[in-house]
């Protein structure tokens, strides 16, 4: 706002000179953000451009020779069966994962909301799965689901559900469920903490008034909690969708995308093609497809974040 006034000041110089004067006048502000801006441009901006460039080349990771191939990677990707298989697998991975995290998170949050003795203890305990290395959670779940020595099979046998150990992660039909369970476990704490914060910001009077009007617990949940929590649910679900979409460490450690690619997702495939197989060009083209998905998420996020006027 102050900017416009400065521009209307009569100035002798050209636009360019006035621009320089403006920069000089605010040099301290620009100098302070410069390191961060330059850093992000080179560590994030440059790789983005590099990804786009590489996607038009045949570029083996172990050689310096690059051959221009135009849109060949994209054409081959869209014509391949694996691409559509990956879209389907990524879709179910995100959908089931986010739904599981949201429901379990909401359940935890609702029960932590009231006047709970030892809430700090509970909150810390529920937080831990989110804060430990994904690779560690992944090996622990591999261990739990181990066909011979796993705890899951031991429990199922004890309960009489099965009489012999089953190998979930080795079975192409159900392996993804074995992985998604680990991912839900990792992602639930974030949901629970966000929902809890959201729940605590709902004024208690709303519930009191509803109780006086004779609203049942369920009705209070349906007509007060859910509407009041709407924007929190929206943001948390969106963030969780992004993180589930790009989840790498868990899948890579648990199955590496197997068996026969059934637990692979778009980002796992990027890694496998680009870095594991060393086909940088093809991997880059898959990355660009990944960018497009993230772009959609980012636009939605920014719209929600900057909604309702200028907050910056």
């Amino acid at each position, binding site marked *: 706002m102050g900017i416009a006034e400065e521009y209307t000041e009569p100035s002798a110089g050209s636009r360019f000179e006035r621009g320089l004067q403006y920069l000089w006048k*605010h040099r301290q502000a620009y100098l302070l953000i410069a*390191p961060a801006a330059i850093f992000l441009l080179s560590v994030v901006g440059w790789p983005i451009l590099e990804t786009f460039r590489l996607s038009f080349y045949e570029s083996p990771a172990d050689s310096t020779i690059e051959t221009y191939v135009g849109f060949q990677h994209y054409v081959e990707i869209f014509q391949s069966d694996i691409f559509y298989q990956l879209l389907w697998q990524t879709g179910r991975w995100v959908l089931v994962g986010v739904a599981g995290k949201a429901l379990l998170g909401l359940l935890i949050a609702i029960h932590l909301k009231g006047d709970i003795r030892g809430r700090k203890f509970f909150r810390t305990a529920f937080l*831990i799965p989110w804060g430990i290395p994904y690779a560690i959670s992944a*090996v622990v779940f591999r261990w739990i689901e181990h066909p011979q*020595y796993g*705890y899951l099979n031991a*429990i199922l046998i004890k309960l009489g559900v099965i009489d012999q150990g089953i190998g979930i992660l080795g079975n192409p039909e159900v392996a993804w469920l074995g992985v998604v369970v680990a991912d839900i476990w990792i992602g639930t704490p974030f949901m629970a*903490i966000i929902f809890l914060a959201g729940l605590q910001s709902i004024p208690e009077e709303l519930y009191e008034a509803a109780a006086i009007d004779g609203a049942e617990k369920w009705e209070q949940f349906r007509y007060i909690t859910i509407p009041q929590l709407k924007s929190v649910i929206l943001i948390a679900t969106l963030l969780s969708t992004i993180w589930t979409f790009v989840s*790498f460490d868990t899948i890579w450690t648990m199955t590496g995308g197997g068996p026969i690619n059934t637990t692979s997702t778009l980002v796992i495939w990027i890694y496998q093609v680009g870095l594991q197989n060393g086909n940088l060009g093809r991997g880059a083209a898959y990355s660009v497809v990944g960018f497009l998905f993230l772009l959609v998420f980012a636009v939605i996020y920014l719209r929600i974040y900057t909604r309702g006027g200028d907050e910056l």
Partner: protein
Amino acid sequence: MMAGQERSQLRKVRLYGVLIALLGIMMFPFYAMFSSTFKPESEIFSSPATLFPAEASIQSYIEVWAQTDVLLWIGNSFLISLGTVALTLLLAIPAAYSCARNDFVGKRSFLLAVLVVQMFAPVVLIVGLFDVITQFGIYNTYFAVIIPAAAFTLPFNVWMLYGYFQTIPESLEESARIDGASQRQILTKIVLPLTKPALVASITYTFLYAWNRLLFVLTFLTDAGKYNIPRGVFSMVGALQTDWRMMLTVSVIGILPLLVLFAFLEEYIVAGMTAGAVKE
């Protein structure tokens, strides 16, 4: 009156019952991990698994020092995490301060661009990043892990500190300036001490991020002597055979420092998690 009290008692019992059940589900993997590390070798490979160790033994904790590089990995994890924290703060503090105190063309774009980076998951960028890291000539050095980790924690730090700097009244700085304090003194002696909660939240977030991530170490460090904890654990997963007892023991040791962090800094971690999602 009595009936009402009984009903609220009943509700309490049900509430705690559900909470403890949920806690049990969420804690079960930890139980599976911890209890397995205390089983002697003969018992851990019994099928079906025993849910409670028949005899507790700390043998695996003794063997793990001798047979694995767990100490080295922990050391590397600290090095990478602290390096990332230092670099991120060095970049984020000036940028956030500048945005909180000045109005200039490009500020809004800068802050929004930073927010977009937050969403730009490293794995989608990993192919381009691999190319750039190689061109920087830092492949297989700690910088190859610290620099990308700093880039992806910077957004959180900038926004967290930016929001907090705005709440510190400028008049405080004015009076210090009148007393003859330099800009640097104002920042280090007055502003930063007041920013402690935001700084602790930022540092914890960055530390955890760098400690927990496998991707950068997996991709950019080939030298086994530079592995961090996640990479070390990952390296113990065998194609055909895995020494589960050793691997789980390393895992337990690898999360112990984090458990200490959670116990002491839980409030700051929660503040950080909710900062972006729950608006006051």
